[in-house]
């Protein structure tokens, strides 16, 4: 699949259709999960009453911001090793989307947490390993974009960005395990869908209720498609501008 799309022309052909389709599908699925999540399912008071409805955006965005950074690092790695231009285009396109979803995860999380945390929640963000590591992820996305913007040529930007993106990847596993590893330093609730690390034993009812899980997964699928659509859209425009540059360069060579 990837190797098939590695060819820019094929990518452009594929994405011309893929973008609108995944936009539509994603919107539908998100709408569905939100409709159910906000109006249908009963609130779970153990989880903060109606506030917990933020979950149906929070968890998908949380997973996505990690996934997108993994994508950024992966693309950077591919470009760094094989100098594959499309990989760089992808990396460049992923960054803003990833930053967006990181922000979304943070906002929804704060909404969710608002009640439980009360007034001093800003201190909690700073003192909380999970929240902090997500904040770090956000800074990494910003730093990546700032670095690219600061460098003169695309080559330079690509190389510098790739170095940074690959280093920063270490943060993703940290985010994932931050809850299970350092219960002491987080109020964030542990992974209940997929948990790695060593979660401390729970009693039965604390596993996630199936009707929540459904909406959550709908939302996750929808947001994944939406993110994919936006990334591909940015990639397309980037490819166009690069083609334009090349044309200009050729013209200048002629002149």
């Amino acid at each position, binding site marked *: 699949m990837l190797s098939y799309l590695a060819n820019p022309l094929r990518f452009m052909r594929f994405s011309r259709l893929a973008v609108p389709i995944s936009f539509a599908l994603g919107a539908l699925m998100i709408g569905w999960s939100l409709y159910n999540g906000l109006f249908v399912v009963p609130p779970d008071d153990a989880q903060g009453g109606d506030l917990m409805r933020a979950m149906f955006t929070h968890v998908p965005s949380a997973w996505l911001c990690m996934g997108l950074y993994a994508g950024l690092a992966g693309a950077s790695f591919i470009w760094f090793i094989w100098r594959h231009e499309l990989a760089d285009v992808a990396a460049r396109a992923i960054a803003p989307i990833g930053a967006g979803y990181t922000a979304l995860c943070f906002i929804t999380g704060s909404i969710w947490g608002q009640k439980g945390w009360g007034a001093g929640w800003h201190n909690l963000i700073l003192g909380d390993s999970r929240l902090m590591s997500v904040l770090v*992820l956000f800074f990494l996305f910003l730093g990546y974009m700032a670095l690219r913007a600061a460098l003169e040529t695309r080559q330079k930007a690509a190389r510098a960005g790739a170095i*940074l993106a690959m280093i920063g990847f270490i943060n993703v596993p940290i985010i994932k395990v931050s809850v299970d590893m350092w219960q002491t330093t987080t109020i964030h609730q542990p992974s209940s869908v997929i948990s790695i690390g060593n979660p401390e034993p729970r009693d039965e009812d604390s596993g996630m209720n199936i009707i929540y899980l459904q909406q959550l997964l709908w939302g996750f699928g929808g947001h994944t498609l939406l993110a994919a659509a936006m990334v591909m859209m940015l990639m397309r425009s980037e490819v166009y501008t690069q083609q334009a540059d090349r044309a200009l360069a050729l013209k200048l060579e002629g002149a």
Partner: protein
Amino acid sequence: MSPSPLLSAFRSSLSEAWANGAGLLLPLGFFTGTATLVPFALGPEAELLSRVGPGVLWLALALSSMVTLERVFQADLQDGALDLWLQDIGSISLVAAIKTLTHWLVSGFPLVLLTPLIGFGLGVPTEKMVPAMLGYAMGGLVFFLWGGVAAALSASVARAGLLIALLALPLYVPALIFGVQMVEAGFDSPSFLFLSASTLFALGVAPAAMGAALRLAAE
């Protein structure tokens, strides 16, 4: 590279650190500043001071690492010394690593040595000293290594200062979390392991990254 080049890289960057003194500026300024300020800001209650001390030390480490290395790498770029280093292929990451370690030794390590002084001054309990010092030593090392990467990445950039802060801080945070915890909790806390781990990780990854970034800066 044979040891002797690295040795003389070390010697030269020692004299560099000593020459531009910037390394010493921050810790020194910081301590004089702290010593003057903390009592004013907080009043003399020892209990309170002993809790502010560590945070201030971490700040000093983070700052000196960022500012020192920015200056070093940018100077190398401007006066053409970087070009000379780059002639001998392959050496550059090693050289960068040594420069970083040297400047850590000059600007970061004094903080560690001063910990007991400050500590007693601020009334930190004695048994906390040793783990604290080790924590600062390792944490500072990580700061300098990642700070070096950030500085190298933005060496060729005009608006470097701001960028370095933006790039370095996220890289600092993990070591920071573990470091602070370790200084609090001592050796038998998991954070000791985590801090050691992230130190090793930085030692393994940062030099290569700096090398690549410096090659890029010279372009």
